[in-house]
Protein backbone atom coordinates (compact mmCIF):
# COMPACT_ATOMS: atom_id res chain seq x y z
CA UNK A 1 0.00 0.00 0.00
CA UNK A 2 1.20 3.41 -0.81
CA UNK A 3 0.39 6.22 1.55
CA UNK A 4 -0.22 9.72 0.34
CA UNK A 5 -0.30 12.12 3.22
CA UNK A 6 -1.93 15.48 3.49
CA UNK A 7 1.24 17.36 2.60
CA UNK A 8 1.06 15.76 -0.79
CA UNK A 9 -2.19 17.49 -1.53
CA UNK A 10 -0.69 19.06 -4.63
CA UNK A 11 -0.10 15.65 -6.09
CA UNK A 12 -3.65 14.80 -5.28
CA UNK A 13 -4.91 17.89 -7.07
CA UNK A 14 -2.85 16.99 -10.11
CA UNK A 15 -4.28 13.56 -9.90
CA UNK A 16 -7.80 14.89 -9.78
CA UNK A 17 -7.11 17.18 -12.69
CA UNK A 18 -6.07 14.44 -15.02
CA UNK A 19 -8.07 11.88 -13.20
CA UNK A 20 -10.24 10.45 -15.50
CA UNK A 21 -12.00 7.49 -15.45
CA UNK A 22 -14.15 5.23 -13.71
CA UNK A 23 -12.96 2.58 -11.36
CA UNK A 24 -13.58 -1.03 -10.81
CA UNK A 25 -14.20 -0.64 -7.14
CA UNK A 26 -12.47 -0.65 -3.82
CA UNK A 27 -11.72 -3.54 -1.56
CA UNK A 28 -12.12 -2.51 2.06
CA UNK A 29 -10.18 -4.47 4.65
CA UNK A 30 -11.09 -4.35 8.30
CA UNK A 31 -7.99 -4.86 10.41
CA UNK A 32 -8.43 -4.46 14.14
CA UNK A 33 -11.19 -1.91 13.71
CA UNK A 34 -9.22 0.01 11.12
CA UNK A 35 -10.59 0.28 7.62
CA UNK A 36 -7.98 -0.05 4.88
CA UNK A 37 -8.62 0.35 1.21
CA UNK A 38 -6.92 -1.88 -1.24
CA UNK A 39 -6.64 -1.97 -5.01
CA UNK A 40 -8.78 -4.59 -6.64
CA UNK A 41 -5.93 -6.27 -8.40
CA UNK A 42 -2.53 -7.78 -7.80
CA UNK A 43 -1.53 -7.80 -4.20
CA UNK A 44 -5.02 -7.57 -2.82
CA UNK A 45 -5.04 -11.15 -1.64
CA UNK A 46 -1.74 -10.77 0.22
CA UNK A 47 -2.96 -7.57 1.88
CA UNK A 48 -6.22 -9.22 2.84
CA UNK A 49 -4.50 -12.07 4.65
CA UNK A 50 -4.42 -10.50 8.10
CA UNK A 51 -7.72 -8.68 7.76
CA UNK A 52 -10.57 -9.84 9.96
CA UNK A 53 -12.84 -9.49 6.95
CA UNK A 54 -13.19 -7.47 3.82
CA UNK A 55 -15.91 -5.98 1.71
CA UNK A 56 -15.89 -4.43 -1.74
CA UNK A 57 -17.53 -1.18 -2.74
CA UNK A 58 -18.81 -0.59 -6.24
CA UNK A 59 -20.82 2.42 -7.29
CA UNK A 60 -22.65 4.33 -9.99
CA UNK A 61 -23.00 1.58 -12.57
CA UNK A 62 -25.59 3.68 -14.48
CA UNK A 63 -26.93 0.75 -16.48
CA UNK A 64 -28.71 2.30 -19.48
CA UNK A 65 -26.14 5.04 -20.08
CA UNK A 66 -24.78 4.57 -23.60
CA UNK A 67 -22.86 7.63 -24.67
CA UNK A 68 -19.33 9.01 -24.56
CA UNK A 69 -17.10 8.19 -22.85
CA UNK A 70 -18.53 4.73 -22.17
CA UNK A 71 -20.92 3.14 -24.61
CA UNK A 72 -20.91 -0.19 -22.80
CA UNK A 73 -21.44 0.36 -19.09
CA UNK A 74 -22.58 -3.24 -18.73
CA UNK A 75 -19.15 -4.46 -19.83
CA UNK A 76 -17.23 -2.25 -17.39
CA UNK A 77 -19.60 -3.24 -14.58
CA UNK A 78 -18.99 -6.89 -15.41
CA UNK A 79 -15.24 -6.30 -15.30
CA UNK A 80 -15.58 -4.69 -11.90
CA UNK A 81 -17.57 -7.65 -10.61
CA UNK A 82 -14.98 -10.10 -11.94
CA UNK A 83 -12.26 -8.25 -9.99
CA UNK A 84 -14.46 -8.23 -6.90
CA UNK A 85 -15.05 -11.95 -7.13
CA UNK A 86 -11.31 -12.71 -7.18
CA UNK A 87 -10.95 -11.11 -3.75
CA UNK A 88 -13.70 -13.17 -2.16
CA UNK A 89 -14.96 -10.33 0.02
CA UNK A 90 -17.36 -11.12 2.84
CA UNK A 91 -19.90 -8.97 1.08
CA UNK A 92 -20.25 -6.30 -1.58
CA UNK A 93 -21.90 -2.90 -1.30
CA UNK A 94 -23.26 -0.90 -4.22
CA UNK A 95 -23.54 2.76 -3.30
CA UNK A 96 -26.28 3.70 -5.73
CA UNK A 97 -27.17 4.79 -9.23
CA UNK A 98 -27.50 1.18 -10.25
CA UNK A 99 -29.37 2.42 -13.33
CA UNK A 100 -29.38 5.57 -15.38
CA UNK A 101 -33.15 6.09 -15.68
CA UNK A 102 -34.85 3.75 -13.16
CA UNK A 103 -36.29 1.64 -15.97
CA UNK A 104 -37.38 -1.87 -15.04
CA UNK A 105 -35.27 -3.39 -17.82
CA UNK A 106 -32.22 -1.51 -16.54
CA UNK A 107 -32.74 -2.90 -13.04
CA UNK A 108 -33.19 -6.36 -14.55
CA UNK A 109 -29.95 -6.03 -16.51
CA UNK A 110 -28.09 -5.06 -13.36
CA UNK A 111 -29.63 -7.86 -11.31
CA UNK A 112 -28.68 -10.33 -14.04
CA UNK A 113 -25.08 -9.13 -14.16
CA UNK A 114 -24.73 -9.34 -10.38
CA UNK A 115 -26.29 -12.78 -10.26
CA UNK A 116 -24.11 -14.01 -13.11
CA UNK A 117 -20.95 -12.76 -11.41
CA UNK A 118 -21.66 -14.84 -8.33
CA UNK A 119 -20.06 -12.39 -5.89
CA UNK A 120 -22.15 -13.34 -2.88
CA UNK A 121 -24.19 -11.03 -0.71
CA UNK A 122 -24.68 -7.52 -2.11
CA UNK A 123 -26.06 -4.64 -0.09
CA UNK A 124 -27.53 -1.71 -1.98
CA UNK A 125 -28.56 1.86 -1.40
CA UNK A 126 -30.46 3.77 -4.12
CA UNK A 127 -29.13 6.76 -6.02
CA UNK A 128 -31.30 9.54 -7.38
CA UNK A 129 -31.17 7.84 -10.78
CA UNK A 130 -32.87 4.78 -9.24
CA UNK A 131 -35.95 6.54 -7.89
CA UNK A 132 -37.13 8.58 -10.89
CA UNK A 133 -40.89 8.81 -11.28
CA UNK A 134 -41.88 6.17 -8.74
CA UNK A 135 -40.06 7.12 -5.52
CA UNK A 136 -37.98 4.02 -5.91
CA UNK A 137 -40.79 1.44 -6.14
CA UNK A 138 -39.01 -0.61 -8.83
CA UNK A 139 -35.73 -0.34 -6.96
CA UNK A 140 -37.14 -1.35 -3.58
CA UNK A 141 -39.09 -4.24 -5.09
CA UNK A 142 -35.85 -5.79 -6.31
CA UNK A 143 -33.08 -4.57 -4.02
CA UNK A 144 -34.77 -3.14 -0.95
CA UNK A 145 -34.00 -4.37 2.56
CA UNK A 146 -37.17 -4.64 4.54
CA UNK A 147 -36.00 -3.70 8.02
CA UNK A 148 -37.69 -0.29 8.03
CA UNK A 149 -40.57 1.17 6.03
CA UNK A 150 -38.25 3.88 4.70
CA UNK A 151 -35.78 1.34 3.33
CA UNK A 152 -32.76 2.30 5.45
CA UNK A 153 -31.12 -0.48 7.46
CA UNK A 154 -28.17 -1.58 9.55
CA UNK A 155 -26.29 -4.80 10.20
CA UNK A 156 -23.25 -6.06 12.06
CA UNK A 157 -20.28 -7.85 10.61
CA UNK A 158 -17.14 -8.87 12.46
CA UNK A 159 -17.73 -6.41 15.29
CA UNK A 160 -18.32 -3.53 12.92
CA UNK A 161 -21.68 -1.79 12.73
CA UNK A 162 -22.82 -0.96 9.18
CA UNK A 163 -25.53 1.60 8.49
CA UNK A 164 -27.15 2.06 5.08
CA UNK A 165 -28.82 5.44 4.64
CA UNK A 166 -31.06 6.79 1.88
CA UNK A 167 -30.61 10.44 0.95
CA UNK A 168 -32.12 10.63 -2.54
CA UNK A 169 -35.84 10.75 -1.78
CA UNK A 170 -38.15 13.71 -1.12
CA UNK A 171 -35.60 16.19 -2.44
CA UNK A 172 -36.72 19.79 -2.29
CA UNK A 173 -36.36 22.51 -4.92
CA UNK A 174 -33.00 24.19 -4.52
CA UNK A 175 -31.90 21.61 -1.94
CA UNK A 176 -29.35 18.85 -1.70
CA UNK A 177 -29.61 15.23 -0.70
CA UNK A 178 -31.87 14.67 2.29
CA UNK A 179 -32.20 12.11 5.06
CA UNK A 180 -35.37 13.44 6.67
CA UNK A 181 -36.59 13.46 10.26
CA UNK A 182 -37.82 9.84 10.29
CA UNK A 183 -34.50 8.44 9.17
CA UNK A 184 -32.51 10.68 11.53
CA UNK A 185 -34.69 9.53 14.42
CA UNK A 186 -34.10 5.92 13.49
CA UNK A 187 -30.34 6.49 13.15
CA UNK A 188 -30.14 8.03 16.60
CA UNK A 189 -31.87 4.98 18.11
CA UNK A 190 -29.90 2.53 16.03
CA UNK A 191 -26.59 3.89 17.32
CA UNK A 192 -27.75 4.49 20.89
CA UNK A 193 -26.98 1.01 22.21
CA UNK A 194 -23.47 0.79 20.77
CA UNK A 195 -20.29 1.36 22.71
CA UNK A 196 -18.06 4.15 21.42
CA UNK A 197 -15.37 1.58 20.61
CA UNK A 198 -17.54 -0.01 17.95
CA UNK A 199 -16.19 0.81 14.49
CA UNK A 200 -19.03 2.22 12.39
CA UNK A 201 -19.30 2.27 8.62
CA UNK A 202 -22.05 4.42 7.14
CA UNK A 203 -22.90 4.25 3.47
CA UNK A 204 -25.28 6.25 1.29
CA UNK A 205 -25.36 7.44 -2.29
CA UNK A 206 -24.92 11.20 -2.07
CA UNK A 207 -22.00 12.56 -0.08
CA UNK A 208 -22.83 13.15 3.58
CA UNK A 209 -20.54 16.19 3.58
CA UNK A 210 -20.49 19.31 1.45
CA UNK A 211 -18.26 18.39 -1.44
CA UNK A 212 -19.70 21.04 -3.76
CA UNK A 213 -23.23 22.17 -2.92
CA UNK A 214 -23.49 24.28 -6.10
CA UNK A 215 -23.68 20.99 -7.97
CA UNK A 216 -25.85 19.35 -5.38
CA UNK A 217 -22.93 17.38 -3.96
CA UNK A 218 -23.97 17.25 -0.35
CA UNK A 219 -26.83 16.38 2.00
CA UNK A 220 -29.00 19.03 3.67
CA UNK A 221 -29.26 17.40 7.08
CA UNK A 222 -26.00 15.43 7.23
CA UNK A 223 -24.70 17.59 10.10
CA UNK A 224 -27.30 16.14 12.41
CA UNK A 225 -26.45 12.60 11.34
CA UNK A 226 -22.77 13.30 12.03
CA UNK A 227 -23.61 14.64 15.48
CA UNK A 228 -24.77 11.13 16.43
CA UNK A 229 -21.53 9.61 15.11
CA UNK A 230 -18.90 11.86 16.67
CA UNK A 231 -18.62 9.89 19.90
CA UNK A 232 -17.37 6.81 18.05
CA UNK A 233 -13.65 6.18 17.77
CA UNK A 234 -13.72 5.09 14.14
CA UNK A 235 -16.35 6.15 11.64
CA UNK A 236 -16.06 5.67 7.89
CA UNK A 237 -18.63 7.29 5.61
CA UNK A 238 -18.70 5.85 2.11
CA UNK A 239 -20.56 7.46 -0.79
CA UNK A 240 -20.82 7.41 -4.54
CA UNK A 241 -22.61 10.01 -6.68
CA UNK A 242 -19.72 12.20 -7.80
CA UNK A 243 -17.83 9.58 -9.83
CA UNK A 244 -14.43 10.45 -8.45
CA UNK A 245 -12.35 10.09 -5.35
CA UNK A 246 -12.69 12.83 -2.81
CA UNK A 247 -11.91 12.54 0.83
CA UNK A 248 -12.25 14.53 3.97
CA UNK A 249 -11.27 13.82 7.55
CA UNK A 250 -13.10 15.32 10.49
CA UNK A 251 -11.69 14.02 13.74
CA UNK A 252 -12.49 10.33 13.82
CA UNK A 253 -14.89 10.53 10.89
CA UNK A 254 -13.48 9.91 7.45
CA UNK A 255 -15.61 10.67 4.41
CA UNK A 256 -14.87 8.96 1.18
CA UNK A 257 -16.47 9.15 -2.25
CA UNK A 258 -15.99 6.39 -4.78
CA UNK A 259 -15.51 6.29 -8.49
CA UNK A 260 -18.10 5.01 -10.87
CA UNK A 261 -17.88 1.77 -12.81
CA UNK A 262 -19.42 3.67 -15.74
CA UNK A 263 -17.96 7.13 -16.39
CA UNK A 264 -16.11 9.97 -14.67
CA UNK A 265 -17.45 13.37 -13.75
CA UNK A 266 -15.43 16.58 -13.61
CA UNK A 267 -13.68 17.83 -10.50
CA UNK A 268 -15.90 20.11 -8.38
CA UNK A 269 -16.63 23.40 -10.15
CA UNK A 270 -14.74 22.53 -13.32
CA UNK A 271 -17.05 23.18 -16.27
CA UNK A 272 -20.73 24.02 -16.37
CA UNK A 273 -22.05 21.05 -14.46
CA UNK A 274 -21.52 17.54 -13.15
CA UNK A 275 -22.19 15.67 -16.39
CA UNK A 276 -20.11 12.85 -17.83
CA UNK A 277 -16.55 13.75 -18.77
CA UNK A 278 -16.78 13.07 -22.46
CA UNK A 279 -13.27 13.94 -23.47
CA UNK A 280 -11.75 10.72 -22.21
CA UNK A 281 -10.81 8.60 -25.18
CA UNK A 282 -12.11 5.04 -24.93
CA UNK A 283 -8.62 3.54 -25.15
CA UNK A 284 -7.47 5.78 -22.30
CA UNK A 285 -10.14 4.62 -19.90
CA UNK A 286 -8.25 1.74 -18.39
CA UNK A 287 -4.91 3.50 -18.34
CA UNK A 288 -5.83 4.99 -15.01
CA UNK A 289 -6.52 1.69 -13.39
CA UNK A 290 -4.19 1.21 -10.47
CA UNK A 291 -3.86 4.82 -9.43
CA UNK A 292 -3.91 4.94 -5.70
CA UNK A 293 -4.67 7.65 -3.29
CA UNK A 294 -4.25 7.07 0.38
CA UNK A 295 -4.58 9.29 3.39
CA UNK A 296 -4.75 8.35 6.94
CA UNK A 297 -5.60 10.00 10.18
CA UNK A 298 -4.38 9.13 13.61
CA UNK A 299 -7.22 9.35 16.07
CA UNK A 300 -6.79 9.74 19.82
CA UNK A 301 -7.30 6.03 20.23
CA UNK A 302 -4.65 5.38 17.60
CA UNK A 303 -7.32 4.23 15.25
CA UNK A 304 -6.29 4.87 11.72
CA UNK A 305 -8.52 5.06 8.75
CA UNK A 306 -6.77 4.38 5.54
CA UNK A 307 -8.25 4.77 2.14
CA UNK A 308 -6.95 3.64 -1.12
CA UNK A 309 -8.86 3.47 -4.33
CA UNK A 310 -8.11 2.58 -7.82
CA UNK A 311 -9.70 2.06 -11.10
Amino acid at each position, binding site marked *: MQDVHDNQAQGRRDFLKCMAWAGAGTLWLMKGGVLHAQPLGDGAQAAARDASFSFAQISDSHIGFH*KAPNTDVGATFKEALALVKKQKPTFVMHTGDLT*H*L*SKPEQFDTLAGLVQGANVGRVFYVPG*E*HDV*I*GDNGAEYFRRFGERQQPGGWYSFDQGGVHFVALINVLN*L*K*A*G*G*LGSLGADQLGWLKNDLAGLSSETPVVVFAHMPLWSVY*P*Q*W*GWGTDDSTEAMSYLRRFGSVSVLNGHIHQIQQKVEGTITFYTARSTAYPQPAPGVG*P*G*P*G*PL*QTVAPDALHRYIGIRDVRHVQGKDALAVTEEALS
Partner: protein
Amino acid sequence: MTTLHARHAHWMWVAMLFVALGLVRSAWAADVALPKAKIYRVEIHGFAFSPKTLSVPVGSRVTWLNSDEEPHVVTSAGSLFTSSKALDTGDSFSTTFQKPGTYAYYCSIHPMMVGTIIVQ
Protein backbone atom coordinates in the same frame (compact mmCIF):
# COMPACT_ATOMS: atom_id res chain seq x y z
CA MET B 1 -64.40 47.44 -78.68
CA THR B 2 -62.75 49.76 -76.32
CA THR B 3 -65.52 49.13 -73.82
CA LEU B 4 -65.22 45.41 -74.21
CA HIS B 5 -61.50 45.56 -73.67
CA ALA B 6 -62.02 47.72 -70.65
CA ARG B 7 -64.52 45.23 -69.23
CA HIS B 8 -62.21 42.33 -69.83
CA ALA B 9 -59.42 44.14 -68.10
CA HIS B 10 -61.80 44.98 -65.26
CA TRP B 11 -62.70 41.34 -64.75
CA MET B 12 -59.08 40.38 -64.80
CA TRP B 13 -58.37 42.88 -62.02
CA VAL B 14 -61.30 41.57 -60.04
CA ALA B 15 -60.06 38.00 -60.45
CA MET B 16 -56.58 38.99 -59.40
CA LEU B 17 -57.98 40.81 -56.41
CA PHE B 18 -59.82 37.68 -55.32
CA VAL B 19 -56.68 35.59 -55.69
CA ALA B 20 -54.74 38.16 -53.70
CA LEU B 21 -57.46 38.26 -51.04
CA GLY B 22 -57.41 34.50 -50.84
CA LEU B 23 -53.68 34.57 -50.19
CA VAL B 24 -54.05 37.23 -47.57
CA ARG B 25 -56.86 35.33 -45.90
CA SER B 26 -54.90 32.12 -45.72
CA ALA B 27 -51.96 34.04 -44.33
CA TRP B 28 -54.30 35.62 -41.79
CA ALA B 29 -55.66 32.26 -40.81
CA ALA B 30 -52.14 31.07 -40.04
CA ASP B 31 -51.44 34.26 -38.10
CA VAL B 32 -54.59 33.94 -36.08
CA ALA B 33 -53.90 30.28 -35.28
CA LEU B 34 -50.30 30.92 -34.16
CA PRO B 35 -50.80 32.73 -30.85
CA LYS B 36 -53.00 29.89 -29.58
CA ALA B 37 -50.46 27.26 -30.57
CA LYS B 38 -47.39 29.29 -29.71
CA ILE B 39 -44.92 27.12 -27.94
CA TYR B 40 -42.77 28.63 -25.25
CA ARG B 41 -39.48 26.87 -24.89
CA VAL B 42 -37.23 26.25 -21.96
CA GLU B 43 -33.83 24.79 -22.76
CA ILE B 44 -32.23 22.43 -20.28
CA HIS B 45 -28.52 22.76 -20.74
CA GLY B 46 -25.44 22.76 -18.51
CA PHE B 47 -27.52 21.68 -15.50
CA ALA B 48 -29.72 24.79 -15.75
CA PHE B 49 -33.11 25.85 -17.09
CA SER B 50 -32.94 28.65 -19.63
CA PRO B 51 -34.61 31.06 -19.33
CA LYS B 52 -34.72 30.48 -15.59
CA THR B 53 -37.89 32.56 -15.32
CA LEU B 54 -40.40 32.62 -18.17
CA SER B 55 -43.56 34.73 -18.32
CA VAL B 56 -46.37 33.45 -20.54
CA PRO B 57 -50.03 34.33 -21.14
CA VAL B 58 -52.76 32.10 -19.69
CA GLY B 59 -53.36 29.06 -21.88
CA SER B 60 -49.77 28.84 -23.08
CA ARG B 61 -48.05 25.62 -23.77
CA VAL B 62 -44.51 25.38 -22.46
CA THR B 63 -42.01 22.86 -23.79
CA TRP B 64 -38.81 21.88 -22.04
CA LEU B 65 -36.08 20.35 -24.19
CA ASN B 66 -33.18 18.51 -22.57
CA SER B 67 -29.97 19.01 -24.50
CA ASP B 68 -27.74 17.89 -21.63
CA GLU B 69 -25.91 14.59 -21.59
CA GLU B 70 -27.57 13.88 -18.26
CA PRO B 71 -31.23 13.04 -17.73
CA HIS B 72 -33.40 15.61 -16.00
CA VAL B 73 -36.93 15.67 -14.62
CA VAL B 74 -39.19 18.73 -14.67
CA THR B 75 -40.95 18.61 -11.31
CA SER B 76 -43.49 21.11 -10.02
CA ALA B 77 -42.75 22.40 -6.53
CA GLY B 78 -45.97 21.69 -4.64
CA SER B 79 -47.28 19.45 -7.44
CA LEU B 80 -49.15 22.27 -9.22
CA PHE B 81 -48.64 20.56 -12.56
CA THR B 82 -47.86 17.00 -13.58
CA SER B 83 -44.15 16.26 -13.55
CA SER B 84 -42.31 15.02 -16.60
CA LYS B 85 -40.87 11.57 -16.94
CA ALA B 86 -37.10 11.25 -16.96
CA LEU B 87 -35.97 13.30 -19.94
CA ASP B 88 -32.96 11.74 -21.58
CA THR B 89 -30.79 13.70 -24.01
CA GLY B 90 -33.02 15.13 -26.75
CA ASP B 91 -36.28 14.34 -24.95
CA SER B 92 -38.87 17.05 -24.43
CA PHE B 93 -41.86 17.60 -22.18
CA SER B 94 -44.80 19.97 -22.67
CA THR B 95 -47.58 21.17 -20.45
CA THR B 96 -50.27 23.84 -20.80
CA PHE B 97 -50.83 26.45 -18.11
CA GLN B 98 -54.53 27.26 -17.85
CA LYS B 99 -54.51 29.32 -14.66
CA PRO B 100 -52.58 32.44 -13.81
CA GLY B 101 -49.97 32.03 -11.11
CA THR B 102 -46.32 31.47 -10.33
CA TYR B 103 -45.19 27.91 -10.94
CA ALA B 104 -41.85 27.05 -9.36
CA TYR B 105 -40.26 23.86 -10.60
CA TYR B 106 -37.01 21.94 -10.22
CA CYS B 107 -35.23 18.84 -11.39
CA SER B 108 -36.07 16.04 -8.97
CA ILE B 109 -32.73 14.34 -9.56
CA HIS B 110 -30.65 17.53 -9.48
CA PRO B 111 -32.72 19.68 -7.12
CA MET B 112 -30.29 22.60 -7.29
CA MET B 113 -31.70 23.16 -10.80
CA VAL B 114 -34.69 25.46 -10.31
CA GLY B 115 -36.92 27.53 -12.62
CA THR B 116 -40.18 29.47 -12.60
CA ILE B 117 -43.05 29.86 -15.05
CA ILE B 118 -45.13 32.98 -14.46
CA VAL B 119 -48.57 32.70 -16.04
CA GLN B 120 -50.36 36.04 -16.51
